[in-house]
């Protein structure tokens, strides 16, 4: 078990290396630099800045330097936020994104799996059709349409909730962004659960359980355990995506999260900040995929032997 975890984490190292390498060289190949201002700096000042940040060295040496610092857990200084380290910026933005993401994940998992189960139990019925259509609709509503609509409805018309801002994570500021983030995932999870459970309910063991006279609730519970495997596998990458923030939601609601730092970093050619965020996301994807696999093994004993 521990061996498996360690092996999987070790397999993630080459992936992380690839992420660092691709994003590093991609950014350096691109035209423009972090110190291109609208009013150009004097050549001497530019030279000085480049020296301070080590941009005058050969590219390979810079890459080596970055990797060496990274190995010691140092993500380097930010290029655009003066006197701030990338690690510091991430430490500031991650709690915002993670709070939103965790709440949205919990909400969409509860609602999505619940609705999907209900639809699978009422296959072909009116409830199933309504849930199916709602799920398709929720998948098709882009967050950048939902967010302004929610702002209009609850912020401007009803005046129940603030339009945007963070305010140290006060609950009223969280409601609209969390709803926007969770909505499409409710649909995705409901559809996944419905398909998987509907398929499982057609299998022999279920017929046996029913014929033995087990109450429907118990039958559902037993079947759901196995049927949730693809759902749990989907939750891994979903959690990573939600925890690291949605660029759109953070932009529209004016939240100081990771996604916004990333976009601002990319626009300002803030090399280290962009790499730091990309690296963080990739690491989270790997860890959470592993967590999802472990959860699958817990749900389905057959998977424990296989790997």
């Amino acid at each position, binding site marked *: 078990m521990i061996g498996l975890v360690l092996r999987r984490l070790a397999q993630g190292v080459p992936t992380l290396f690839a992420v660092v390498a691709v994003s590093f060289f991609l950014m350096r190949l691109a035209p423009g630099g972090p110190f291109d201002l609208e009013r150009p700096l004097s050549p001497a000042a530019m030279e000085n800045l480049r020296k301070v940040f080590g941009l005058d060295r050969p590219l390979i040496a810079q890459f080596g330097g970055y990797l060496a610092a990274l190995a010691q857990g140092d993500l380097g200084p930010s290029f655009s936020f003066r006197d701030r380290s990338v690690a510091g910026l991430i430490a500031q933005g991650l709690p915002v994104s993670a709070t939103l993401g965790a709440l949205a994940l919990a909400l969409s998992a509860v609602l999505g799996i619940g609705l999907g189960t209900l639809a699978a139990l009422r296959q072909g019925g009116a409830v199933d059709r309504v849930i199916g259509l709602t799920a*398709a609709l929720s998948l098709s509503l*882009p967050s950048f349409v939902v967010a302004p609509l929610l702002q209009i409805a609850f912020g401007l018309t009803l005046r129940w909730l603030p339009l945007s801002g963070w305010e140290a994570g006060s609950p009223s500021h969280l409601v609209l962004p969390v709803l926007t983030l969770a909505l499409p995932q409710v649909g995705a999870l409901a559809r996944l659960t419905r398909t998987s459970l509907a398929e499982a309910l*057609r299998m022999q063991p279920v017929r046996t359980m029913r014929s033995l006279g087990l109450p429907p609730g118990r039958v559902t519970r037993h079947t759901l355990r196995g049927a949730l495997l693809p759902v749990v596998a989907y939750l891994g990458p979903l959690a990573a995506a939600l925890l690291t923030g949605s660029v759109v939601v953070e932009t529209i609601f004016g939240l100081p999260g990771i996604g916004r730092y990333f976009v601002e970093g990319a626009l300002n050619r803030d090399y280290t900040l962009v790499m730091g965020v990309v690296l963080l996301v990739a690491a989270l994807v790997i860890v959470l*995929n592993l967590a999802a696999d472990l959860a699958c093994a817990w749900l389905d004993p057959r998977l424990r032997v296989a790997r």
Partner: protein
Amino acid sequence: MKAAPTPGRRVLSRLVRQRGAMTALAVLVLVALACLAGPGLTGTEPDRFYPDLRLLPAGLGAQPDEAHLGLALERIAFRIRARVAEATRDGETLRLVLAADAPIDRRGLVYLPRSDLFGPARVVGEEEGGRRLILAVPVRALHFPLGTDIHGRDLLARSLVAGRVSLAVGLTATLVALLIGIAYGATAGLVGGAVDAVMMRIVDALYALPFIFFVILLLVFFRASLGLMLVAIAAVEWLDMARIVRAQTLSLRERDFVRAARALGSSTPRLLARHIVPNALGPIAVAATLLVPQVILLESFLSFLGLGVQEPQTSWGVLIAEGARSIETAPHMLAAPAAFLIATLVSLTVFGDGLADALDPRGRET
């Protein structure tokens, strides 16, 4: 005795019986036809600015109506250096009397047809030595059923033109992802062994990459363009397709007809083209149908961030971004493109589900 229906026919008849899927298909065909043929039929050009008809709400009435007519006339009269002394509308012609302190320069009358609201003016009479002009001006009747944007462009025509781009991007990127995914997945599944293991490890590794972030980086650093966006979207979306095709191939590989073909000496490419891919087409078709909305959504997401389709081209995402910016003053600017986008995406999803049900013989509605 009648011949048994072929599997393809059976799927088709099951599909036709699903009302939801058929409704969705009808909506899709309608949207596609409207986008292809519609911009020519709206009576307005999508790129035409009507400075006198900015931010019209959605409505069926002919424009310019009384209020906008007055404003437009005042603006044009100002440019001719005259005042509107009298304006009476009689159906499609307007009796307009312009007055000024000095004789009116008739060359200024070209401003009337130039606004696109009026036809060429005819001078009926002249009074006070040219300081009063009596004109007969034909008034055009324009229709903006979905309103106009901040620059006075017809939102219906613009939504339809934008739809062409969105649909084209959705179909092209899906096709590219489909081709890569099928080739990759079928090869991995059919060859098997170490090759399969290595190929699927690569897919696993790619899955762990934060692709959305790479797409954004690519589009920010290298000037955003339609082609680059297509490549970026296809590069993200082929992974799922590869997995689906591989799983199908694995189950087909050991079937008797494939083994027979192999025993008869079919080469791997021939096996793929003749036996594996045609038999896996059902699930591939379902996955592709469900992929198109994802691609369109991704395109509009990137365009919303300003990284996708660039002016003067437009897409639903671009229009929605414009609408979202002015939602407090003009909610109809968001409503028009969003309605098109959402109707298309929902229909694609519902149709994909129907196709999946029709292809799955174990489904309930058989």
